[in-house]
């Protein structure tokens, strides 16, 4: 943009055309009082504090809404301006509860700032009458309050909720002196559609919206949110040995300061009284506290007996890269087996397998930030708002910027509100839907021939198989009208750059890998990959699931996806670790459970997983685990699963250790120690090193996380150029080839990472889900996540406020089905499948299609995975958590 010259109070400045007078002034360090202005929001000009005079215009103008013009001359003060400002401000003051000394915003309040600058006359204030009636505060939200008597009606919260959060929970309501900020029907905030993200609270200029907990931290430590794979940058506020608050880091390219409710308010669990503080050894039926030495001696003695195939490890996607690296090293070098896996098996194993087949690498191809700039976003099998809240903000901002949104989901998820096209396909029919879209693209001659010819292979075979997917046929299978599929195809193919985002709705199927391959086909067909804002993006679930995979917490890979079955790879690691290694590919998480059941695996080392709630057919898992001869669990809390262990070791939380997490966009980011570990707990890597040393295994003498990371980057090609110094402020996205390489925001730019550099089209056949509803079990159960909880709830269920917002398992059901079974909201029901039965509470919603019910798995009281189907995808071995046949009954 071009520059213009303006004069403010007689001084000349150059500023960018298109700026407002207020922005131009503030940038040049000229203060103009303002209250309703916020740099991230559109101006409304409601507070009238920023009045200025512009030469040549007779009346005053609001600086926050007036755009600069060449040669404009602005006066920020004059008798007229001063008296108008003062009068407006005085009116605000008489209506504002005078409570500064007590107020949580004292010292950072903008009303104070403006008042100090403008000045009010105490005597006149006494003469003015209060015009606004008293309204009692809304304290309903567990994390923040709204004190109406302090609200200056600037509208910043309303605009934040609209422009940034896209929720629109708030609006001005009523009129005149009665005007307030209010949710629909003047409901309490808790009962409204508010998602408790707290973005409005952060921006409220006065003490009207304030967090409930507000002790001021004595120091701040920058780290990464421990909940989901988005990996938002956070500042942990610390005072003494407690976390006081969490703030989003504005400079983080991932979240740009924004956070969801879990990230901002869900930290109480760190200081929770139930944290494990000492090692526990089971004596008889009960756990007895022990010293570290006693526990380690016992473990070392026992584990020495199970070296090789009778041992297995479940590592953890919650732990750091350093933890995972050490855990897999111990399993391989210490226990001589590749039987190691983690919960990625239950979420994105098909992505790793499928995308590796098509593109040569199983990770997000683009950055989160690029999504906001895409021309079209195709969101399939992801309830982004609930599971990846901050990524959903990018989708919403893309929509605001004019991009087209296509949502494919059986349920009417929140993103449907923002969608231009919603394809409501039947659960489990993703392959025909995606192939149908491909077919329509070819019918419309919208394929990218150039890209297909120069960058891909297997196209003609793939095209051949498309014959089966004529749109009428696809409509019959998926339930989506052919016209809609055609429309979606046209938008996706022609509105590029197009990005696909997907999650568990694609992967947790017996045909999960096929689903992923179908997505790759679609992207390659239109050349929508390898460019900015254009690619295939699996949204990873856990905070460090990408890292745990990268670190080789997988049965077939060493760190950096180097195959355990390859001779030269084995050599490399044998040399590096100075030991003999086992070249037999290990078994997967699901297979480990059956191996335990068959008593082939006899000893288990479980780190930070809660398999009893996360694995399908949980009753079976429990029976199996009881058969173990020796079971060591390591966790921050005594989880439902850890209760079955022989020894439980107390682990430090993310806030108590150094290390790195790798987020869903492959960004390796620093996690920093903010507190000392509670009790005698220790970082996971240290615990594993102590076990290894006790057993006399060499190569575990690390002094700290940094030293481990140095070993990681030496052995992992994609992490080669990464050092703690380089990622001190902002993380780097792998692959980072050397110490000067800037990382790789977009994968597959010139060629794919496959052996010959070509993308591979896949031929696909439709296979229905393993279990479909029938007479006996007439409903289809699908699983979901809630915004307010995380995974099995080990952390989030220990945050009181999150429990207030979502306290029990709700079975969502379509009102028509509910009527059929004479059920209404709040009824207790049992949900039964061929594998078991659980109880929960009914919630009717049109969001659920007929014949489908939906549950989460956050609640140990309603362990949904007792009834889910363990049938697995033949390639990725992921269980079909998204489709099970069930029946429900009132109880």
């Amino acid at each position: 943009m071009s520059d213009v010259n303006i004069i403010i109070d007689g001084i000349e400045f150059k500023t960018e055309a298109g700026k407002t007078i207020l922005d131009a002034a503030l940038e040049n360090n000229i203060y103009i009082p303002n209250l309703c202005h916020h740099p991230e929001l559109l101006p409304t000009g409601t507070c009238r504090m920023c009045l200025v005079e512009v030469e040549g215009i007779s009346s005053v103008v609001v600086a926050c809404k007036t755009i600069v013009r060449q040669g404009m001359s602005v006066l920020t003060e004059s008798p007229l301006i001063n008296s108008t400002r003062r009068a407006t401000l005085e009116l605000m003051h008489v209506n504002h509860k005078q409570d500064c000394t007590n107020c949580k915003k004292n010292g950072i309040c903008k009303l104070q700032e403006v008042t100090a600058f403008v000045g009010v006359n105490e005597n006149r204030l006494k003469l003015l009458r209060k015009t606004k009636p008293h309204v009692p505060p809304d304290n309903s939200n567990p994390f923040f309050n709204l004190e109406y008597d302090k609200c200056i009606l600037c509208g910043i919260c309303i605009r934040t909720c609209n422009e940034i959060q896209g929720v629109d929970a708030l609006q001005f309501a009523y009129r005149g002196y009665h005007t307030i900020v209010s949710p629909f029907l003047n409901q309490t905030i808790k009962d409204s559609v508010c998602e408790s993200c707290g973005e409005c609270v952060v921006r409220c200029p006065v003490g009207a919206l304030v967090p409930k907990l507000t002790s001021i931290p004595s120091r701040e430590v920058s780290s990464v949110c421990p909940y989901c794979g988005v990996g938002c940058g956070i500042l942990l506020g610390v005072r003494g040995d407690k976390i006081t608050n969490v703030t989003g880091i504005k400079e983080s390219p991932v979240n740009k300061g924004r956070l969801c409710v879990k990230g901002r308010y869900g930290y109480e669990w760190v200081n929770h009284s139930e944290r494990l503080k000492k090692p526990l050894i089971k004596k008889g039926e009960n756990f007895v506290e022990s010293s570290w030495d006693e526990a380690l001696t016992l473990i070392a003695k026992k584990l020495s007996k199970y070296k090789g195939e009778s041992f297995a490890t479940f590592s953890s996607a919650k732990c750091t890269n350093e933890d995972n690296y050490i855990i897999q090293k111990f399993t391989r070098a210490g226990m001589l087996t590749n039987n190691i896996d983690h919960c990625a098996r239950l979420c994105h194993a098909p992505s790793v397998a499928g995308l590796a087949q098509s593109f040569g690498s199983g990770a997000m191809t683009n950055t989160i930030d690029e999504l906001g700039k895409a021309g079209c976003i195709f969101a399939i099998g992801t309830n982004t708002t609930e599971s990846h809240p901050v990524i959903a903000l990018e989708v919403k901002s893309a929509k605001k910027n004019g991009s087209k949104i296509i949502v494919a989901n059986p349920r009417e998820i929140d993103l449907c509100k923002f969608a231009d096209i919603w394809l409501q396909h039947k659960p489990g029919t993703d392959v025909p839907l995606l192939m149908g879209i491909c077919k329509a693209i070819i019918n419309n001659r919208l394929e990218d021939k150039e890209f297909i010819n120069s960058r891909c292979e297997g196209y003609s075979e793939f095209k051949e198989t498309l014959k089966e997917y004529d749109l009428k046929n696809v409509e019959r299978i998926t339930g989506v009208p052919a016209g809609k599929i055609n429309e979606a195809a046209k938008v996706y193919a022609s509105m590029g750059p197009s990005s696909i985002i997907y999650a568990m709705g694609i992967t947790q199927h017996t045909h999960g890998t096929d689903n992923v391959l179908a997505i790759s086909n679609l992207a390659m067909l239109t050349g929508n990959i390898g460019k900015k804002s254009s690619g295939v993006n699996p949204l990873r679930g856990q905070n460090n699931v990408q890292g745990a995979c990268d670190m080789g917490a997988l049965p077939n890979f060493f760190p950096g996806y180097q195959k355990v079955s390859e001779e030269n790879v084995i050599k490399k690691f044998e040399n590096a670790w100075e030991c003999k290694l086992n070249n037999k590919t290990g078994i997967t998480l699901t297979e480990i459970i059956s191996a335990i059941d068959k008593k082939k695996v006899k000893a288990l080392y479980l780190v930070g997983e809660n398999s009893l709630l996360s694995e399908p057919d949980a009753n079976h898992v429990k029976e199996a685990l009881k058969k173990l001869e020796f079971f060591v669990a390591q966790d921050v809390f005594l989880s439902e699963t850890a209760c079955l262990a022989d020894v439980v070791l107390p682990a430090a939380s993310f806030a108590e250790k150094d290390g790195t997490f790798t987020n869903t966009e492959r960004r390796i980011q620093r996690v920093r120690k903010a507190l000392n570990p509670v009790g005698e707990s220790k970082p996971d890597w240290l615990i594993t090193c102590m076990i290894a040393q006790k057993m006399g295994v060499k190569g575990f003498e690390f002094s700290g996380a940094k030293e481990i990371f140095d070993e990681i980057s030496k052995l992992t090609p994609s992490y080669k150029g990464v050092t703690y110094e380089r990622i001190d402020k902002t993380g780097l996205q792998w692959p980072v080839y050397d110490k000067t390489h800037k990382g790789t925001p977009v994968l597959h730019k010139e060629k794919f990472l496959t052996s010959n550099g070509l993308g591979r089209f896949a031929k696909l056949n439709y296979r229905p889900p393993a279990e479909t509803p029938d007479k006996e079990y007439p409903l289809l159960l699908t699983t979901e996540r809630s915004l307010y909880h995380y995974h099995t709830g080990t952390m989030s269920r220990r945050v009181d406020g999150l429990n207030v917002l979502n306290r029990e398992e709700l079975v969502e059901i379509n009102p028509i089905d509910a009527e059929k079974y004479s059920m209404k909201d709040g009824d207790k029901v049992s949900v039964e499948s061929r594998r078991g039965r659980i109880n929960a509470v009914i919630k009717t919603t049109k969001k659920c299609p007929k014949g489908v019910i939906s549950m989460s798995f956050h609640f140990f009281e309603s362990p949904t995975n007792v009834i889910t189907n363990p049938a697995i995808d033949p390639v990725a071995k992921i269980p079909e958590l998204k489709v099970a046949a069930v029946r429900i009954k009132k109880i």
Partner: protein
Amino acid sequence: MLVMKEKLDIILSSFSGEGRELIPVLQKIQEEMGYLSPEAMLYAAEFLKIPPSNVFGVASFYEQFRFSPVGKKIVMVCQGTACHVKGAEKVMNEISRHIGIKEGQTREDMEYTLKGVACIGCCALAPCITINDDVHGRLTPKLIEKLFIKKPVNKKTNE
């Protein structure tokens, strides 16, 4: 719930579903249904693609919109100065006794809503009231009795 949806479908069939139709849409709903129920406002929000909070914001801004149901006959008892002097309070009490509800209430059978209002501009006829659009002035207990023939509340209507 479904019945309500169908009713609203018909009520709004003459609108095209654009945001600027909000006020006419709300007026039409109120005209047909007597008031703006939460369901009706949510429906309007979805129909016009406006956040529900905005619909409520606008609806609560205008005096003309009601958020609770009113009776078939809206009785407004003038409480302006002239009527006050001529015994508006007695009139209110008398009517209240006859129809069995207090000021501000709506009878369960949805027959009457009783309200007190400021001067209705017929001071010469004080004390006066309006029933829907009709003005009745110079009220006496006899006249009131004629206007409000006591009906026994039909128990069956409550089923």
